[in-house]
């Protein structure tokens, strides 16, 4: 069971994430969109959407700082454990709370506004459950374990395990005895990662990072340009 959770599931989820994204890119570029419902309803979205998205961006940055950057590097930079703990607790809680509040408003809007609700698919609902669960658990971890219960240094257990995954040396012993909330949060996070490319979340991978660097006007030839799918065998154009 432990092997399954801490050594198999991470790789399964990464394979699905990468494979699913490649599959989506090749076969469903048309479906790759934000699926915005702003046309139907704007007032709630105006507050909820930036709240959620900016909260989430800071949450992700926090995960990078906490999981990817080893504790040693941080102290080498002069960031003491107590400082890191305080920052992660307060900034993390704030970002998490913003994301949760934003998501709650978005889900409320989705349920109560007729047109928005009728544009919601089952896929969306499953995704909202997983996303909500992982955000709530993450917030609980930060507030309960790190705040009320006084602090749990995940940078000696979860962090090294996470980095070990990328070195292809998953050390499952590190994950023994981690608080239950952490375990749940991690597992749901991995499930969400696995489903990521198959849900509307995929629009995050379309983040327009090239926009600031391109000229305002785009010219393109009628005949060139990206093809949507490989030519069928025997139907290749004559070259």
């Amino acid at each position, binding site marked *: 069971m432990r092997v399954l959770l801490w050594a198999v599931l991470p790789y399964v989820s990464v394979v699905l994430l990468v494979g699913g994204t490649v599959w989506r890119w090749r076969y469903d570029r048309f479906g790759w969109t934000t699926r915005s419902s702003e046309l139907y309803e704007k007032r709630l979205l105006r507050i909820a959407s930036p709240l959620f998205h900016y909260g989430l961006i800071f949450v992700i940055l926090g995960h990078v700082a906490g999981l990817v950057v080893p504790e040693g590097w941080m102290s080498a930079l002069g960031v003491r454990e107590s400082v890191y703990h305080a920052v992660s607790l307060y900034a993390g809680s704030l970002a998490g709370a913003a994301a949760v509040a934003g998501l709650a408003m978005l889900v409320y809007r989705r349920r109560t506004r007729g047109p928005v609700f009728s544009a919601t698919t089952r896929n969306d609902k499953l995704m909202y459950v997983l996303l909500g669960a992982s955000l709530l658990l993450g917030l609980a971890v930060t507030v309960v374990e790190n705040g009320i219960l006084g602090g749990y240094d995940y940078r000696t257990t979860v962090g090294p395990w996470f980095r070990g995954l990328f070195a292809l040396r998953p050390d499952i012993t590190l994950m023994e005895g981690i608080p239950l909330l952490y375990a749940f949060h991690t597992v749901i996070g991995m499930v969400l990662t696995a489903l990521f490319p198959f849900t509307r979340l995929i629009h995050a991978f379309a983040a327009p990072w090239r926009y600031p660097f391109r000229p305002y006007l785009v010219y393109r030839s009628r005949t060139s*340009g990206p093809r949507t799918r490989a030519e069928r065998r025997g139907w290749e154009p004559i070259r």
Partner: protein
Amino acid sequence: MRVMAQLAMVMNLDKCIGCHTCSVTCKQAWTNRSGTEYVWFNNVETRPGQGYPRRYEDQDRWRGGWELDRRGRLRPRSGGRARRLLTIFSNPLMPSIGDYYEPWTYDYASLTTAPLGDDFPVARPHSLVSGERMKVEWSANWDDDLGGGPALAAADPVVEKIAQDVRLDYERVFMFYLPRICEHCLNPSCMAACPSGAIYKREEDGIVLVDQDRCRGWRMCVTGCPYKKVYFNHRTGKAEKCTFCYPRVEVGLPTVCSETCVGRLRYLGVLLYDADRVAEAAETEDDTALYEAQLGVFLDPEDPDVRAAARRDGVPDAWVRAARDSPVHALVNRFRVALPLHPEYRTMPMVWYIPPLSPVVDALRGTGHDAEDAGNLFGAIETLRIPVSYLAELFSAGDPEPVTRVLRRLAALRSYMRDRNLGDPADPAKAEAVGMTGRDMDDLYRLLALARYEERYVIPTQAEAEAAALEESVCPVGEDAGARPGPFGEASGRPERASVESFHALRDRQTGGALVHPADRKGRVNLLNWDGQGRPGGLFPHRPKKKKEGEE
């Protein structure tokens, strides 16, 4: 100078009777799908009126188009790149469905399935967005023919701009129709606003299109376009817009809206322009000088230098020929009777309008004067400030001069031709009074009144352009060109140029001795000898050798 060709349109507003045939046929061709119920790539507005979507011309609210920043450089009015990315998570500057209208249908089944009774059954409207019953309160042409009266028309942003004293009683004075499609601008602000780079302008004909596979539904183009002619498909989550019926014009057919226009008021043709000067012209500081600046971007296809440059820049000869015959070129550049819609948006729009003289004629006739007399008409154009200032807000950023000049030309033409039709000698003074010659008058009359199908639509096909590119003379064999495979196998690397390939094919055929290359033989079958039974080897292209799993 970088010569580019643009397919452009001119609409003669005097001829528009507001029948909406263009809108309906366009909708049947392009937007009769789920998700685009509310979308009209072509719509016809009654002016004065709010337009579709409601009050779209109020750029203080919607912030479409371009503005000049402090250093005098162009910037989308809704904000530059950084601002756009930081505010990407919600876009309050985008009209919601209520600003267009909530699309609806009727439960027609209730008409046929209602039980027998004393009351007539009615089909009640229900929303195509939510599916709920709804009250129909607005549509794409709710204020058609000034329906709704002064209350609605007073909210026209153009009316609001006109000076207070001129505004009184305008709705009793005049009314005209304004058909609108995407402007296929030279400097499109929808394109500038698109974070994904999905909107592009075609190099061959200047048509602005949305790449549906690259659009990610950020909706910034809807904000960017000041004409609100990019729409969000709420089912697919992608932006869609007028395509200038590119599948039709590529083969030389006019757009659906032009083809079906009962008033025959649309003209299609090629304009040549200098792509290097577009930005400079759009940066012209004075709003009212933008019309002249845009005229300065166009190139004269009669000029030998332009023709040489066109050939150098890959504009096919057939397109340059079409530009010389282009009715759009004639109306825009030669007679200067067509004006751009809202040049002050700085997008350099390419659907132009001949402003209507009919409000002036009608007003004049209403007073009992001779509405064909040039002197009377000239006087009326000067006196009737309301139509002129309204038209000026639409077509020349508020400067009455260009509109007055066009109306005077139309009035002179009217009077000049009446003399001719009544058997009087043509009066060249009437032509000269508006800076034209008798010959110009005849040509303009022919173009506006008589022009046949092939004179109104001068559309070179893409096939002509491609055929030119295939000619050996255009595409000579390079010194070291050979049918070498690229570094990763046969199909890799750059595709061979057509003439290079035919050169090698010809040499192989002459020296090979076989009818077909022996390696190809097993991949062919003579269908004349095939009895329809079974699958002789070579009926289908042979399957390539097994590849690794996942590789294609």
